[in-house]
């Protein structure tokens, strides 16, 4: 065979090899085939981030695989809120876990979504360096603290704490940073503190250089951050799917709150199969102490959201006073309140 | 080494002396002999031409005398002192790519003159611009000069530092025949104005007979000195005179001899 022939054959063989490997290893055939099913039988795609406060999403998916009705939805992991936002707007995902202020901001900008459920309660903390100069929150004056985004409850939490100590808004420097960067930034003295959701405070603690200054509940009882939003057209066209989704999330939340072995099991399968984080880290975040994050009650309450909205307006990230009923649909959470936890035990391959 | 003033066959002071010079190159593990036992005495102010087939090692010989290469055996001495490296007292002139394209004509000529005072330097530059007849082009860049002008510039640059010896390696090879004739005349004129020892490499027989006092015929590689021909015609040489044609024929014969090795 001539040289040209050999090169052509080589290229063709290489393409065949990597296509085959790709199809075998990477392609999520469930998702691909789902796109070809008729619209009313298609499974919805739910977006989530690898953070502990959105644990109910992968937990529901995992457990529902063992249930009689099979997998409930197709979970899709993202690495940041902007991507989730774009996917929601262009209908590549039909439901997503986002943070409350972001959902309110999106609705005020005209994106057709509704809040249907919460993801968790608590789970955020302010972390400082273990041997650092900050001993109480009053020491934060003049220091730099990292927040995940200006549309986060963590930022609002800071403002609540500042009000208690009489610290004025310019006196603490807030920088927006990507959550994975904050641990090393804290260790390298680039920032003096950070306020993030789990598992990043745990990461700093386990790394030996971080100390939790205070948990969210100290300045914000009933703190909630991550919530479940669903596209309006899905609610209109297939409300039963939304109900099934909310029911599943509710049952997962109750299951997680039942006992420690459930949480340890969740840390294991979520860390390994979904989040790609060390199960030891998730175990620490979920069990030390047990109420670092809780997953019930998760029905959206007007009082919680009105407070978030008012804080957003006060701190300048929202300029429209929109009503709770404009962006929430509580039908589904009302129905879900009668749910019971999943009957699933680790090691037993059925669930109910 | 003793600095005695040696006398060459013509009775003048010896300027450049090569004794048993040989050069062997190591290429890919094989040793390639290029020069074989070259012995040559050049007197001060002489115009020597080196003639030989291409690839015979003429350029290597030039580089040896210039100090860019070291001989494998034998010695090269100038004014009785051994040659160990390049020196501004002996300047090499290449084919036209040797001028510095980022400098003007003035800048090129003044390149080797940085040790002089500004006034002296300007005087020298003006003098040599006049000598090579490049007036009016002081601020021109080489990219706007013709091939012949670039060669004149190179010669001017070489002369400006007042070298004892000038080596020219086929400097007119890239020029057309009319320009070549003109340039030969120019070179002779300059040589007669400011007399220096010149060693001129060429493969053009006419050029050798027209320019040189003595023509050194080199054989093909490994090069040996086949013969040395003395051109005893006074300048300006009539290229139709019988003596010229006689010498030219003799040179042709000698080269023919060299080729049949």
């Amino acid at each position, binding site marked *: 065979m001539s040289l040209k022939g050999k090169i052509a054959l080589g290229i063709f063989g290489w393409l065949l090899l990597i296509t085959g490997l790709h199809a075998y290893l990477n392609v999520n055939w469930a998702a691909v085939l789902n796109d070809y099913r008729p619209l009313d039988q298609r499974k919805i795609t739910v977006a989530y981030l690898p953070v502990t406060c959105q644990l109910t999403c992968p937990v529901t998916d995992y457990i529902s695989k063992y249930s009689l009705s099979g997998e409930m939805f197709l979970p899709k992991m993202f690495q940041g809120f902007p991507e989730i936002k774009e996917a929601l707007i262009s209908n590549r995902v039909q439901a997503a876990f986002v943070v409350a202020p972001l959902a309110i901001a999106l609705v005020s900008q005209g994106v057709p979504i509704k809040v249907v459920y919460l993801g968790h309660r608590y789970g955020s903390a302010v972390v400082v360096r273990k041997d650092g100069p900050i001993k109480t929150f009053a020491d934060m004056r003049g220091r730099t603290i990292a927040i995940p985004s200006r549309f986060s409850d963590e930022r609002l939490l800071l403002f609540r704490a500042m009000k208690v100590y009489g610290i004025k808004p310019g006196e603490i420097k807030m920088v927006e940073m990507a959550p994975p960067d904050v641990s090393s930034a804290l260790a390298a003295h*680039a920032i003096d503190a950070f306020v993030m959701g789990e598992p990043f405070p745990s990461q700093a603690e386990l790394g030996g250089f971080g100390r939790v200054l205070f948990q969210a509940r100290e300045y914000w009882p009933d703190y909630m951050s991550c919530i479940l939003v669903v596209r309006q057209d899905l609610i209109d066209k297939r409300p039963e799917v939304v109900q099934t989704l909310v029911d599943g999330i509710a049952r997962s939340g109750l299951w997680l709150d039942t006992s420690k072995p459930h949480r340890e099991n969740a840390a294991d399968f979520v860390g390994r199969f979904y989040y790609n984080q060390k199960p030891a880290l998730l175990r620490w975040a979920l069990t030390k102490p047990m109420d670092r994050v809780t997953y019930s009650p998760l029905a959206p309450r007007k009082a919680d959201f009105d407070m978030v909205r008012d804080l957003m307006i006060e701190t300048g990230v929202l300029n429209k006073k929109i009503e709770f009923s404009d962006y929430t649909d509580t039908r589904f959470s009302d129905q879900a309140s009668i749910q019971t936890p999943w009957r699933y035990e680790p090691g037993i391959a059925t669930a109910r | 080494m003793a600095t005695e003033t040696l006398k060459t066959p013509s009775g003048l002071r010896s300027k450049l002396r090569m004794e048993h010079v040989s050069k062997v190159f190591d290429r890919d593990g094989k040793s390639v002999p290029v020069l074989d036992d070259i012995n040559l005495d050049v007197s001060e102010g002489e115009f020597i031409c080196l003639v030989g087939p291409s690839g015979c090692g003429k350029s290597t010989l030039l580089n040896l005398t210039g100090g860019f290469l070291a001989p494998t055996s034998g010695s090269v001495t100038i004014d009785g002192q051994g040659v160990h490296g*390049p020196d501004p007292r002996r300047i090499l002139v290449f084919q036209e790519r040797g001028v510095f394209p980022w400098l003007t004509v003035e800048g090129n000529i003044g390149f080797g003159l940085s040790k002089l005072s500004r006034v002296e330097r300007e005087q020298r530059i003006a003098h040599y611009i006049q000598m090579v007849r490049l007036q009016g082009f002081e601020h021109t*860049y080489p990219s706007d000069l013709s091939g012949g002008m670039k060669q004149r510039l190179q010669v001017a640059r070489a002369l400006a530092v007042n070298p004892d010896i000038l080596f020219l390696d086929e400097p007119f090879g890239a020029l057309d025949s009319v320009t070549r004739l003109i340039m030969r005349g120019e070179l002779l004129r300059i040589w007669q104005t400011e007399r220096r020892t010149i060693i001129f490499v060429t493969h053009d027989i006419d050029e050798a007979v027209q320019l040189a006092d003595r023509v050194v015929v080199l054989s093909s590689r490994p090069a040996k000195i086949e013969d040395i021909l003395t051109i005893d015609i006074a300048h300006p040489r009539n290229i139709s005179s019988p003596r010229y044609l006689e010498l030219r024929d003799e040179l042709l014969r000698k080269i023919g001899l060299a080729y049949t090795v």
Partner: protein
Amino acid sequence: MNSLAKPAGWEKFFWPLLAAGLLLAVWYYSVVWTATKVFPSPLSVDKGLAGLLHKHVLWADIGDSLRRVGLGFGAAAIVGIPLGLTLGWYPALNQVVNPVLQFLRPISPIAWIPVAIVFFGVGDRPAVFLIFLSAFFPILVACVSGVSNVPAIFRRAGRNFGLSPAQILTRVVFPAALPQILIGLRIALGVAWLVVVAAEMIAVDSGLGYLVIDSRNSGKRYDLVVAAMLVIGLIGLALDLGFRSLEKIRSVRWGFRHES
């Protein structure tokens, strides 16, 4: 079209403007036809730009980004040119150092962000560091190759005229390599300006790159995203044109193509 033909004076402006106009039309109609909910049309981008100008933030952003790129690029030139000249001059040294450099070169600046934060903190300094990294390697490579491509004839002439090695480097090798160094600088400037978006991801609060990221993060302001992209593109074009005019300077013009 004759490949040697040079465009006439008026043509230099007419054809690019026509092409730009066509692109704008294609953009507008593709937005309208696909009824996309995310990508903005030229009109909304225009309005967004006007809003930014009205709020006086655009000039501050442009200034901040240019400052960071200026610092990073300048540092890369100051470190890269002498280092490149040295490595080109001593091939043995180049053989030792080159593998390390070629190993570091393909690592994207975004991957360096965590390292940058650890060493430089947050704010301006790590951004400048990332820009420095991205500009450093093109400059270095161009210098090394420029030096090794200097014809031996020039170096020999330098030695012939009695110049010391240091003088040969500064008076012969550097001017001879300068056209290639300039090309390397022009490419490096382009890369540095390109990287500014990535560099401004590290907790800065101003700049064109920051504007892109921030507008995307803060909701549905994709018109600002595209507006910032346009400004970045225009400034990149201006920087490139400015650099090309450097190539017309007479002492380097010999290294670039021109009518003979």
